[in-house]
């Protein structure tokens, strides 16, 4: 009798399930943002896989499937309007700077996908603006750049949807569904996504009433369903290599990511703050969860 309460997974199997869980989100994104989204994702994946194979001079390291996931996450973070070289640069730097430089899978300190994404975000900010034919901007941009407008106007702005940001709320819903799939399989520890979501919702709850007609911070519902919230909470913050594996550090880590992202959204220069929130939290990981090398009894 196998005696475990978790269905047995292999590392490769984990990556396959993550890819499956990302598919609804990918489908909804492609539906709203256009089929070029699929091309961007495909290029990111291929370049990530090729970089890993060339970098390690072996196809054996591809077995674990982590390069596919890294590429897919990068593609999903990028707007479909980017020039084709942007996903290429992002994937190459994600795998080399984010992973191989540290010694390969399991030895990296930072989430590789976020390393690649943050690099292009800093280097080519103009490439990363969502240029949606309909609205011209996402609700997060509106939130940031239209501070003088009244709340009513804001909510009536065409970039806003029912609760979150137009189109993005459906994408977030799709990522939430995929994420819950991983939580139910117990591949992803539920504490991390929950604390990321609380990390963004709680400050939003505090700041929302403080916003006046001249300056809204966005409601908790808005923040939960705008930008990359669900993608980050369920798929990026839960990367096992760069996130804690014990309960209290998981709560602190998730809350940190969520609230840093909230403050970057509301007060920082970038429209969405998750990439930097993740990298910052990664840097604090050794403090949050010192490896228990000095063993207690």
């Amino acid at each position: 009798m196998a005696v475990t309460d978790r269905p047995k997974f292999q590392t490769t199997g984990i990556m396959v399930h993550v890819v499956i869980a990302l598919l609804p989100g990918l489908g909804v994104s492609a539906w709203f943002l256009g089929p070029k989204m699929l091309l961007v994702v495909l290029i990111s994946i291929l370049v990530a896989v090729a970089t890993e194979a060339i970098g390690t001079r072996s196809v054996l390291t591809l077995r674990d499937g982590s390069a596919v996931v890294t590429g897919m996450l990068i593609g999903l973070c990028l707007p479909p309007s980017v020039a084709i070289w942007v996903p290429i640069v992002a994937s190459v730097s994600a795998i080399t700077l984010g992973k191989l430089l540290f010694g390969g899978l399991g030895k990296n300190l930072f989430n590789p996908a976020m390393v690649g994404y943050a690099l292009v975000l800093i280097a080519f900010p103009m490439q990363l603006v969502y240029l949606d034919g309909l609205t011209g901007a996402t609700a997060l941009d509106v939130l940031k750049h239209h501070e003088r407008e009244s709340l009513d106007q804001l909510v009536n702005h065409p970039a806003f949807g029912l609760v979150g940001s137009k189109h993005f709320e459906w994408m977030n819903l799709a990522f939430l569904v995929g994420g819950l799939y991983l939580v139910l399989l117990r591949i992803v520890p539920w504490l991390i996504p929950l604390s990321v979501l609380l990390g963004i919702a709680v400050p939003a709850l505090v700041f929302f009433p403080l916003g006046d007609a001249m300056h809204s911070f966005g409601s908790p519902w808005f923040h939960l369903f705008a930008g990359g919230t669900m993608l980050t909470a369920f798929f990026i913050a839960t990367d096992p290599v760069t996130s804690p594996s014990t309960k209290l550090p998981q709560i602190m880590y998730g809350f940190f990511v969520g609230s840093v992202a909230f403050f970057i959204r509301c007060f920082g220069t970038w429209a969405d703050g998750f990439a930097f929130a993740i990298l910052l939290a990664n840097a604090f990981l050794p403090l949050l969860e010192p490896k228990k090398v000095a063993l207690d009894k």
Partner: protein
Amino acid sequence: MPSLNPSFTPINWEQATPDTLLERIAEAKIVGMGGAGFPTAEKIALAQKHPPNFVIANGMETDPGVNADKVLLERHLDDVLTGLRIVAKILSAVQSFVAIAHERTVQDAQSLLIDNETVRYLKPTFQNGAERELIQILTGHVVKDNSFPAFDGCLVLNVHTLFAIAEAIAGKPLTKRLVTVNDETRWIDIGTPVEEILESRDPIRVGCYATGKRPRANEVLTAKVNAISNDKSVRALPCIHCGWCDEACPRELPVESLFVLAEQLKPNLDVQDALNRCNDCGACVIACPSNIHLLDHVRALRQRNDTERERISRATQARIRFDAREQRLRSDAMSSDAKRSERMQQQHKWQ
């Protein structure tokens, strides 16, 4: 070798004396078939000296993926119960228990029980199969860390051992046993070279994948081996720090950290306590998604620590011997000085 046993005459156990029965068990060279390999007759004799005497048939099958206990109980439940009654008779035991991890077999057993016998279904966990834990669950008795179950009059015998006892009393020597080969459980002759049991050329482990060891050169199947498995760990992937090994460990040990330390290929005496507390259950090995054989690493680190402690104690002893020798030489030198001056004085007198 059990296969060399002569064939005995059958004994009517209900009429035989405890001594005759015990003698036969010793003659048949029956050993613990749950993995311990300890001579069963000695174990029973020990418990005999320490009442109150509970006998427990262990059919808990803690090794993940192994079915040998289940198959045995399905096919030979009556023989296992006979074995249990024989041992109970030798001990004049007050209570017998059967612990089974398969619900269906529990129902079958219920109808066959007599007075003083209890069958219990226990959830198959890594804990429940361990001797001390079983005794505590079934009898409520806690065996202290510095004692042994037999000293407390508690005897836990694997169901295969009980089956072998029943067979020996019935005059049949132990020549084969049920072994789970990957997924399939079948009878295999004791003494078969282990490398020949699995057709494939892949590396194997003697025992289940999680707790078994790589075979030694020309190793043959012994009575205590319940499984032969393919060794998945030869295709291990990098550790992704998921922490599932830590989460799985019933002793709550920091398994991943032990693995990291073991990979340094150095002894580390700071973690000796954790290494001692590991009961080799293999839960961590099953949990690891990257097929890293964590128990191998724990065992290797344990081995290196043993060597290191031996080296330290040898060095300390050498140091003590060296100091003692220095001391002796010094005092010898002093006394010979003293003697010489004494001699000189005496010479003086004579002149």
